């Protein structure tokens, strides 16, 4: 009988922490906006003889915040360690990291996944909720940036010593989708906490996947490979998928997977061997003697816990239960904290339903942001004005079409929606007598169309309504127009 395999996936997420200064010195951590190489440097981050590290308090706070958000226990006594290896991007010849006692351990994150062992592309069936254990969260420092030239390489130390967070999961994921959901959720949390911009194109967040496969039903952990430097969700899913299939093929052919570190060649869509187990570094970890252990009090941990905002999962549940949104509407709105905040700000100023506000945000607002390539934070449209506009449509003061015109005007030039409606003479005509007059005139003018309608071409109703809209330049209340038009057509049937 042919064996069915299931993947076993563990993930490491490396994210830069958004601090002003570097992890162990007071140099600016903002290497991305440095005007030229090697300007944000000092004896500490270039590893000059005699320079000593001093731990960045802010980075410690942010790391603890992430630990708590991922349901970890915070180690009240945690230590830095030296990871020793030689490379030109590592000025001290060791990286200061955390090893035996990281700042946070033993957390979890709930993800959804297709029922195992379905693989990517087959996962349209039932889904399951899965709890992925977070093994540890620890702090370390980034390396310098190397630029390789033909016969030499240049080193830019602006990035050296920038604080990094490493989040390590247990090998608890059994599908590529689960891995994707896990990383997506953690990215959203990091952004919610304001600890990382999540800007993967800029390399502030990178993934590493540990992958092995085993026969379904087996509990063994087979030899795994480690795919390094995955810098997009697409790279993660493609690389993991490729590696799963590669390993299955090896076992099917009666071979053995060898433990190695792999790279991902995005252009060719293959994993490539970088280092085998035999060549693996012995990092000779030992406690960093230049830094005393970080001792965190219960009071300090509580003060960090108090800073935890409502996280995406909780917010989604609240949007569903409090506002009557569907899960997918709620998930859309909570995908970004700024979007969720904007939604709530508009809703709080508006008398319209949450659904109406959602549909405006998901529709017109998103279209505008995408077209103008703006983020929600750059939007000048105030929640008050937006709410007023939505309410004007709900109350039929203006038509939907007119509202879009007003919306575009507000996004472009700001201003009060009522004012714009007045200036552009866009107020909706809801006066029944006035609309009746127009309806009667249109019916009187088009006897042959009425005949066709009565003969069964009922789609002509829309044409009649359209004539009325044209006569009023779109200001006539469309629902009322339609109602009166229908009534008139029926009356003339006799």
């Amino acid at each position, binding site marked *: 009988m042919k064996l069915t395999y299931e993947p076993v996936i563990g993930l490491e997420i490396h994210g830069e922490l958004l601090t002003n200064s570097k992890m162990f010195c007071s140099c600016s951590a903002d290497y991305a906006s440095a005007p030229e190489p090697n300007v944000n440097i000092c*004896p500490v981050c*270039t590893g000059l*003889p*005699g320079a000593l590290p001093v731990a960045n308090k802010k980075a410690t706070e942010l790391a603890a915040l992430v630990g708590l958000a991922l349901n970890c226990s915070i180690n009240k006594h945690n230590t830095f360690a*030296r990871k020793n290896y030689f490379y*030109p991007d590592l000025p001290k010849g060791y990286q200061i990291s955390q090893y035996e006692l990281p700042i946070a351990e033993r957390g979890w994150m709930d993800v959804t996944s297709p029922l195992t062992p379905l693989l990517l592309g087959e996962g349209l069936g039932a889904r399951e909720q899965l709890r992925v254990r977070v093994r540890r969260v620890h702090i370390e420092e980034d390396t310098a940036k190397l630029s390789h030239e033909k016969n030499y390489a240049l080193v830019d130390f602006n990035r050296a010593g920038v604080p990094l967070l490493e989040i390590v999961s247990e090998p608890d994921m059994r599908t590529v989708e689960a891995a994707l959901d896990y990383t997506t959720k953690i990215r959203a949390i990091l952004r919610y906490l304001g600890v990382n911009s999540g800007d993967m194109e800029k390399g502030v967040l990178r993934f590493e996947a540990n992958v092995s496969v085993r026969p379904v039903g087996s509990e063994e952990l087979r030899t795994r490979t480690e795919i390094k430097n995955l810098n997009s969700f697409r790279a993660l899913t493609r690389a993991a998928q490729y590696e799963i299939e590669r390993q299955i093929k090896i076992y099917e052919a009666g071979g053995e997977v060898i433990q190695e570190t792999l790279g991902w060649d995005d252009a060719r869509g293959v994993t490539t061997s970088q280092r085998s187990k035999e060549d693996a570094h012995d990092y*000779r970890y*030992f406690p960093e003697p230049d830094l005393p252990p970080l001792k965190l009090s219960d009071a300090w941990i509580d003060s960090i816990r108090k800073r935890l905002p409502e996280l995406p999962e909780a917010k989604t549940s609240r949007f569903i239960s409090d506002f009557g949104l569907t899960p997918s509407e709620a998930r859309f709105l909570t995908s970004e904290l700024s979007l969720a905040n904007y939604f709530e700000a508009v809703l709080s100023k508006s008398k319209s339903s949450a659904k109406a506000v959602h549909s405006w945000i998901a529709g017109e607002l998103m279209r505008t942001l995408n077209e103008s390539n703006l983020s929600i934070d750059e939007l000048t449209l105030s929640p008050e004005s937006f709410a007023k506009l939505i309410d004007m449509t709900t109350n039929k003061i203006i038509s939907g079409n007119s509202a879009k015109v007003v919306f575009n005007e507000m996004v472009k030039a700001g201003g009060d929606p009522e004012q714009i409606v007045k200036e552009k003479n866009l107020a909706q005509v809801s006066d029944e007598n006035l609309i009746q007059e127009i309806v009667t005139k249109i019916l009187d003018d088009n006897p042959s169309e009425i005949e066709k309608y009565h003969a069964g071409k009922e789609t002509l109703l829309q044409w009649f309504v359209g004539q009325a809209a044209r006569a009023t330049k779109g200001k006539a209340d469309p629902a009322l127009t339609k109602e009166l038009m229908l009534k008139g057509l029926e009356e003339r049937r006799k």
Partner: protein
Amino acid sequence: MNHLTIQELRQLLITKQISSVELTRATLQRIREADAKVQSYVTVTDELALEQAKRADERIAKNENVTPLTGIPFAMKDCISTRGVRTTCSSKILESYIPQYDATVTNKLNDAGAVLVGKTNMDEFGMGSSTENSAFPATKNPWDLTRVPGGSSGGSAAALSANLATFAIGEDTGGSVRQPASFCGVTGIKPTYGRVSRYGLISLVSSFDSIGPFARDAYDCATVLEHIAGHDEKDSTTYQSPVPNYTSTINKPVKGMKLGIPKEYFVAGMDAGVESAIQEAIRQYEKLGMEIHEVSLPHTKYGLPVYYLLLFAEASSNLARFDGTRFGLSVSENAKDAIDIYLQTRRAGFGDEVKRRMMLGAYALSAGYYDAYYLKAQKVRTLLRRDFESAFASCDVLLAPISPTTAFKIGEKTDDPLEMYLSDIYTVATNPAGVPALALPCGFSKDMPVGLQLIGKHLDEATLFQVGHAYQQVTDWHKKLPPL
């Protein structure tokens, strides 16, 4: 005036009987005359020294911010960074390295108005006990030029002993201040670990290294330590607690205080002349009214292996940054890649003893050996610390020998590293324990100086100075000058 104390010179300076420029010139002159024989300095900073002396004189003239160190010439061990003045650690790999920044200690001495006359020779990166493991010529003992001055701060001790500076800054990782102080007949202190900032000190063993001064007597040592100690936000391992005014309590009588004699330090192997000088000092303390108690430091025998194991491990990592890419020596002939530059640079730049210790350290930290070596040593380190804690439960200060012998002959132990390591047997346990120790001259054996050490409680340097000063009030070993 080169042989005078800080206290005496200070009086002459503030009463304008001499100027700092005159004093500095005299020191530089003395260096020119005598240092050809002693070879204690690696770099003499003539111009800078005269400039600093001039500024010190201006401060004194205006009576602005005058400290006891203003205008006083000093020497600095060449492992402490001095901006614009090369800092070599007596290694080829740093032979031409000029730091861009000052160590905290350098800054503090600058602020106090002290005058740097030069950087002193040492065992390469502090690895040695004789100042023979140097990329520069070995320093000679001023008492007998055929003998070593001790190490690793041998240059600083010899410079002070030969009157080539009024005080000298050393650094003690396992006896590197005390043993040369003893060999050269001067006073020196290894302060509590974390009392003096290590920022800018080129690390040997991050968790042992303690910067401390050599001076003509305990009083002068106290004066210098007051100026260089204290919390430093650039060194997270420094203590927050304020620095006491050591000289204000130094004259308190020692009568009734308890002096502990650790029995494990008085065993076979000590030279008879050394032992009798130490015993005489104990009797002297008895006469001063101190209560003498025998105490036990039961884990003393593990001091040497624990010390060396942790030293090798930390040093192997601390020395990784010397890779020829950013500063210092860089050898890249036909280099295939960056790692090749590292290998060539380190092969050419480090001496044998440094290479030996780095290899041993990398081994001790490697996978599969870490628990048996590094971790075990750290556990025994805790026991060493507890030994001292329990001894101090019953006494105020401990008295012990510094070295089983007086200064040995140049070349005598260079071929036998293990024999060289054993010469540190009485000094190494204090560093893993972090406690302070003051070295005092206490006599001679066959015309060579003998020293003793007073070991104190954590952060209790005040008591060491008090007890050391009391002894120097009734003896004059510290006033003896070498026949140079």
